[in-house]
């Protein structure tokens, strides 16, 4: 059992790290709900890929999910601009509709699709050690580990290569555009990365709990630091910690691993929310007792 525990922890950690890395930019860009939208909307992409290839082949799945992820972004913009709806309204319409469409596909073709509604919601990380990748007759270890590892590399490459551009873009897209940075490309690149991370983590933790991995660790890290690089590292670390502690929590109460991981991200956030040295609610309340600074400090005139 040691090895299966190891594989589950590795899978969770890899998923958490990939999600936290790209999720940080979503949080900074105030686009967190785009992560939620994409994670729901990739479902029909996965279902269609399943139906067409009749297998859990990774490449078509990534393709299908990536396509639907970008479609979500595109449709949301379309309804916002042409349909004159507020951004959150159009997003709500697009992703719930796509998700509904995905659920219908899955239940219509339940016989062909090796996916059930519950798996969509909470994933099946517990079965990952048995989902092996046999290549040329050699056992290479669980398939999801390879996929997640690949996506993490992809994300690291994306962030590493476009670090400077992403930084300016996260700060202000308008300013980035004025510097000649291809904002559209960066935007869709980021959304593409979010889609890939979502789909790769999807099998393990399900559609909705992916959102926890995407948003909560970066938000926690953001309360602890203002600098981008430490924030990225911290977010990934918190994500991994949540995955590991979530697994043991799940073992302890005999419940869903994915759900427990989400709960753990929430607990880490709560700690930062209360006790962050710079932003914590309690730390600030304690500091409020100090007298307000002298007027001179503000160099008024």
């Amino acid at each position, binding site marked *: 059992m040691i090895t299966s525990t190891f594989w589950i922890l590795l899978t969770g950690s890899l998923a958490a790290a990939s999600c936290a890395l790209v999720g940080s930019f979503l949080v900074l860009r*105030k686009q*967190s*709900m785009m992560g939620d939208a994409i994670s729901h909307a990739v479902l029909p992409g996965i279902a269609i890929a399943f139906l067409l290839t009749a297998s859990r082949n990774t490449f078509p799945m990534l393709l299908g999910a990536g396509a639907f992820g970008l479609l979500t972004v595109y449709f949301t913009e379309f309804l916002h601009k042409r*349909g004159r709806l507020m951004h959150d309204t159009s997003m*709500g319409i697009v992703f719930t*509709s796509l998700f509904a469409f995905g659920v219908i596909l899955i239940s219509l073709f339940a016989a062909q699709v090796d996916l059930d509604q519950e798996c969509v*919601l909470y994933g099946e990380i517990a079965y990952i050690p048995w989902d092996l990748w046999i290549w040329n007759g050699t056992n290479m270890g669980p398939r999801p580990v390879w996929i997640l590892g690949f996506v993490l590399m992809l994300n690291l490459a994306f962030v590493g290569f476009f670090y400077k551009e992403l930084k300016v873009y996260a700060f202000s897209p308008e300013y980035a555009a004025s510097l000649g940075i291809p904002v559209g490309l960066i935007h869709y690149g980021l959304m593409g990365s979010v889609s890939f991370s979502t789909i790769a983590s999807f099998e393990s933790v399900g559609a909705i709990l992916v959102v926890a991995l995407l948003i909560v660790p970066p938000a926690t890290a953001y*309360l602890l630091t203002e600098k981008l690089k430490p924030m990225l590292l911290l977010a990934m670390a918190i994500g991994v910690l949540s995955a590991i502690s979530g697994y043991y929590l799940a073992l302890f109460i005999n419940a869903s691993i994915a*759900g427990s991981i989400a709960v753990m991200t929430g607990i880490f956030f709560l700690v930062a929310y209360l006790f962050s040295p710079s932003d914590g609610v309690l730390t600030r309340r304690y500091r409020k007792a100090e007298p307000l600074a002298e007027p001179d400090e503000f160099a008024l005139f």
Partner: protein
Amino acid sequence: MSELLNILQYLDDPNARYVLAGTFLLGISAGVLGCFAILRRRALVGDAVAHAVLPGVCLAFIIVGDKDPFALLIGSMIFGWISMIVMDAIVRNTKLSTDASIGMVLSVFFGLGVVLLTYIQSTGNVNQSGLDAFLFGNAASLLPGDVMVFGTLSVIILIVIAVSYKEMKMVSFDPGFAKSIGYPVKRIEFLIATLMVMTITVGLQAVGVVLMASMLIIPAAAGRYWTESLGIMIVIAGAVGAISGVGGTVISGLAPAMPTGPWIVVTALFLFLISFMFAPKRGEVIRKLKNMRNRVRVQDENVLKTIYLLEEQDGLAGKVRSMRDILKRRRMNIRKTRSSLARLHSDGLIQLIPGKPAGYLLTDEGRARAMRLVRVHRLWELYLTSHVQIAGDHVHDDAESMEHLITPEIEEQLTSLLGRPATDPHLRKIPYGETTTGGGLLS
């Protein structure tokens, strides 16, 4: 035919009729309340609350031991409120944006719900099967008792909205002003939030937590396309919600393995797309048609004007002009010019003189219209050069488009402002003629 028979058979079942009444009422209350949700930019808050009530439902189940509608109601209301308070606290006390706080509450609370749900499953409670319905909705699992409770709740929600309509409208539109005149804005917002939590609770079994938000968002968004009045928007949203609720339930009822929620969403989406495309004024198709009609009008007016300018050039009002003459004076697409000439002829604005090639002559009415266009064009040019200080060689293009837009009232203002001038900046005569000022060609 057999489909219809199936539906009739389905409706014959008294339990099904109960369920339909339930989803009907749910549709109305979600649609109505959704109007306030989307207008207050709270569309996705509904999504978060819907997900966040799952742990409440599970806890109620753990404590009570079965699917008692009252216990579930109380459990989900409590967690709905908590989730709202938490979202509010995060936005208020940190630098995180609203959408981050929504996403966090949604996913973490749902995670807690999943933990509790799997915990219940692992304890092997026989009644737990019903809890799955909360994820994607299963209207068929509604018992008559549930429908009574949730139906009553829907009616209460609608009554409260009717009574506090004025206050909710005010707070949704301009909370700052509402506060400035002493409105208890916080309390009204709390009321709206409570109604939202109640609606979501009512919808849980039919639509499920995952898709409940769409019942708030999609009917309201559809309603927005048909009207500029909040009252009417609410009525339409309620109707769209009701139709989606009933339609989705019937469709999923025909295929027993189907969850209800997704079909309700698909039905609502269908109605939304119809609204988006075909609603008068705001609908995409109507707007396209209107644009097209405008372009045709501009084209017709340009052709008419060109004939007049030819007359002006050589001073021969009775001379027949060929299409070649017209196109020589102004470069236009041949095909479009031909159809414009046909339309102008059937409108009685030009005469068609048969021959080879065929010729055209302005009727008196056509001449009056053309003269007005030229007059407005030159008045506008003069106004731009004399009052807006734009150089004379820059004003033609602007006047070229404005001549089709300027109303008789604006024309009158221009004339009196400029003192009925005789010539434009290029010293061309401004024609007044003896005509009355009519509107545009087709007005």
